[in-house]
């Protein structure tokens, strides 16, 4: 993985190398933060704070660990701080967080150059056409909700929801199976 190779060059990392790490990780980290925070703006602030904290503590980074996993740990800490500061309910407990981290770790591979989103794009290409259309109708258009997506496909809502569930399961299987290959 290119970002990990950059991270392994620590502590001689300069600002330019850290920018490449930001560019590689910020999108998957945003998705992870949205699962935790539930709100897009809060998630963006969490990720920004996590990158700032990572840059400040870049000298303490253990090069034997995954850089993405280290960043997710920082995001979790920032999220807990945010919940305490604003007295928000922590919707995810430690067991759920552990399962989430395990899933992300299983979806990412250090011996591959592609990142999580790139591998997800590869898995989407392998989906059957009906499932790929459902995913495209629901996720690729922000202004379209489930009913409109179902209407655009000419199917009822229940069928559309079933296709989405099947598509997610196939994608998870694809991501996990890629590690086994």
């Amino acid at each position, binding site marked *: 993985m290119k970002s990990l190779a950059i991270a392994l060059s620590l502590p001689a990392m300069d600002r330019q190398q850290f920018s490449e790490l*930001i*560019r590689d990780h910020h999108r998957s980290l945003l*998705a992870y933060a949205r*699962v935790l925070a539930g709100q897009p703006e809060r998630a963006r602030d969490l990720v*920004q704070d996590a990158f700032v904290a990572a*840059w*400040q503590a870049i000298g303490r980074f253990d090069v034997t660990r995954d850089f993405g996993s280290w960043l997710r740990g920082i995001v979790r800490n920032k999220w807990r701080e945010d919940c305490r500061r604003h007295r928000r309910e922590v919707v995810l407990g430690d067991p759920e967080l552990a399962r*989430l981290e395990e*899933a992300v770790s299983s979806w990412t591979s250090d011996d591959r150059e592609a990142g999580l989103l790139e591998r997800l794009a590869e898995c989407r290409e392998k989906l059957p056409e009906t499932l790929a259309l459902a995913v495209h109708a629901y996720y690729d258009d922000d202004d379209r909700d*489930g009913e409109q997506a179902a209407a655009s496909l000419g199917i009822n809502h229940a069928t559309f929801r079933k296709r989405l569930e099947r598509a997610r399961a196939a994608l998870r299987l694809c991501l996990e199976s890629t590690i086994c290959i």
Partner: protein
Amino acid sequence: MNTGLPESPEDRLLDELLREQSHGPDEAYLRRIEAAVDARHLPVEVQRPTSGSNKWLARLPLRPQRPETRDQMENLTHRQHIRSFKILAIAAGIALVTGAGLWWRSADQPADAPTMTGTEPQSATPTLVKPERSKSVAEAPRKNRLAPPIPMDAPNRGMTDERMAANHNLPEPNPFGAMSKLPSLPTNNPTGGALTGSGNGKLLARFPGQAADNRAEFADLVRNPTGDGNYGLPAPVEIIPKGVPKGSNIKEHYGQAPQMRDTPVPPSPRP
């Protein structure tokens, strides 16, 4: 509408990953992250001082927000250093002036110990010259209104040592002369314990091998040059209440010392 949003965290993460994939990279958000990291660019290149006397620097606002203004931050720290040096220089100057003033004031004060000078240039007989007493001490006995002022033509006013000695029947006009003849003075030392002239009108008081009682006697003389038991301090002033004629004894006037009343005095009837 219930779109069958996933309940498990893994499915929710996959859902968010699919949304993020459809969005594409957000360059504005990337620039925002870069700017935030640049604002905290100091840990690697410019360490913020957090220890010692420069802790106040760590409380400075985190600037600059952009890398092009980073030099301004370095200039700011440089200016702060210059300011701290100025403060230290001013404090050192104030301390120096204060110390010099105190030293100068202490040097101007007259010595309490008497200086011994010879009455004659080659005389071995010393004369104890009392230090010039301060005005308050010299005039303190006059504050006792009971004591009559000494007239200017009084025979004992401005007495010399010889006349004073004659009036008091002293064996010698100078107490040091009498002290020099004390039997406790060592005899094997030609100058031991004696006050000898230095040849230029001044005497050197030396006590090599001198007994401690001689030193104590000399110290007592130094402390109490007047010999009145007050050690150079003004005599206690007796406060005379109203109605007592000057020069009379209070106890003789009242029969006993006035006491405080225990019961309040009834008001006098108005005319």
